[in-house]
């Protein structure tokens, strides 16, 4: 990858940004999702509205933060409310266009595990759990998952389905009664993936410049659907790189 003038964080941020349309309501977490959203605001989507689940709408953070509960993430917000005022009267009301999520594990149907991982046959480690993740996965029109491309994190089925994707073979969302659209993109440090809406299975959409297809196949714990030709992921533009490095994340804390 050394031949490229961008980092994997930068191409991931640019790929995330590209998925966002002007005027959309986006639920973001800290880190790459936030960076991708701010990049979109600074380029093609100036009227993107960022929603933090605990009750913060449309902030303009200027300092790096330790998380969503860090008031640095609430700077110059235009509305404060509660979970009910964000995940209730915006998300559950059907007005969130895109939700960004991360996870411990994602499976071939886009189901997310953020709850637990077995350490042996009768013991497990407990992690963060859902937070608003299950609600966002259930109810947002589109879900974008940003994560590291790692075989242990991309398994055929998750150990615990915290936040449903397409659930099982054939897209079972409608059957169980979920109103949101389900995962639309998975952006990793190696590739961008989408889903075949009929089967509900993950599909390789593009490979980041400098990454080999074999590398992706080796680091994915299940068979990825893919076309006969898989294009290269769009590299970040000069403008995007300038914004990311000079304006959005000048101290390089997130990317």
């Amino acid at each position, binding site marked *: 990858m050394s031949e490229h003038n961008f980092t994997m964080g930068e191409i991931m941020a640019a790929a995330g940004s590209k998925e966002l349309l002007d005027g959309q309501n986006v639920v973001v977490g800290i880190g790459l999702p936030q960076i991708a959203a701010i990049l979109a605001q600074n380029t093609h989507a100036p009227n993107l509205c960022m929603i933090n689940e605990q009750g913060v709408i449309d902030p303009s953070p200027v300092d790096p933060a330790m998380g969503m509960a*860090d008031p640095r993430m*609430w700077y110059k917000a235009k509305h404060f409310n509660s979970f009910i005022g964000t995940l209730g009267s915006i998300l559950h009301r059907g007005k969130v266009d895109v939700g960004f999520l991360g996870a411990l594990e994602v499976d071939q149907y886009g189901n997310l595990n953020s709850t637990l991982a077995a350490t042996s046959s009768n013991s497990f480690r407990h992690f963060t759990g*859902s*937070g608003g993740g299950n609600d966002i996965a259930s109810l947002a029109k589109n879900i974008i998952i940003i994560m590291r491309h790692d075989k242990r994190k991309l398994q055929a089925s998750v150990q615990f389905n915290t936040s449903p994707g397409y659930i099982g073979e054939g897209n079972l969302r409608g059957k169980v009664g979920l109103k949101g659209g389900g995962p639309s993109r998975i952006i990793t440090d190696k590739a961008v993936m989408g889903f075949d809406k009929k089967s509900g299975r993950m599909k390789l959409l593009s490979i980041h410049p400098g990454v080999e297809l074999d590398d992706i196949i080796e680091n994915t714990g299940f068979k990825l659907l893919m076309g006969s030709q898989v294009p290269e992921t769009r590299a970040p533009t000069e403008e995007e790189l300038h914004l990311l490095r000079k304006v959005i994340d000048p101290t390089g804390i997130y990317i």
Partner: protein
Amino acid sequence: MTGLNKIKSISEAVAIVPDGAHLALSGFTIARNATAGAHELIRQNKKDLTLSQCIGGMDVDLLVGAGLVKRYIYGGGSLDRFGPLLNINRAIEQATIEVDEFSGLSMAMRFMGGSLGLPCIPIQSLLGSDLLESLLKKEKPEVKVTECPFSREKMVLLKTLQPDFAFIHVQKADCEGNAIINGPRWDEDAAKAADKIVIIADEIIPTELTPYLVEEVRIPACRVDIVVHQPYGAHPTSLYGSYDYDYDHLTEYVASARTEQGMDEYLDRYVRETGNFSAYLEKVGGLNKMISLKADPLKKY
């Protein structure tokens, strides 16, 4: 018109909590935790508590670490980038507490329904998840998959929550209990769901001033039972507009909480051996530390 003075000390407020009670605390990861309330619950060594919270905070992690908690009902949580809720995770892994794990919104709906006196309330997340499966497998499930009689849509009916007590840390309150919360209010419905509300205010304002700040009053006095005045009572978590989180102390907390022994030493040093919250504040750096955490009036942190 009313002028009832509901101010009590934190030890008087905590004294009314019986063993086995169900409590909601105001914490959300590293923001506006009811730390002073949690410390006093530990000092008074309450037993077999049920705790409920939308998103876990350090306040409940302290209580779990101190062994006060029998059951925890929550929607997940962490200490943001400082680390996981180590005591809670350990207690779940070792099955030393009973856990009911929901999502953030389903917890908020359970509290909101409880605040309205409703016995149940629907939601349309949780469906198709293992969260729901686990909750349905409980001996007495507090969720039920059903359908709307009007639209025939699938939905999950949630049993609502009405904690016996809420301990809510806020920026300001008057002595009657009119409570001002600035910034996001993840805990407002949990507070109103509770049977008795204890407001722990960093600052007490004169009741004459309340009508001029009325648009910021989030919990009306008529729902509040006790008001406690405790400056810096959310330390080491942040209080929006008042003070920042204490980076050093949170880092020390997470390092301590990695082992049971470390946690026990932390509790001895900072809670059990300090007779009150003022002594705790002295121990973590006193006046100089608090001045260094003071929020910028424009940035609010």
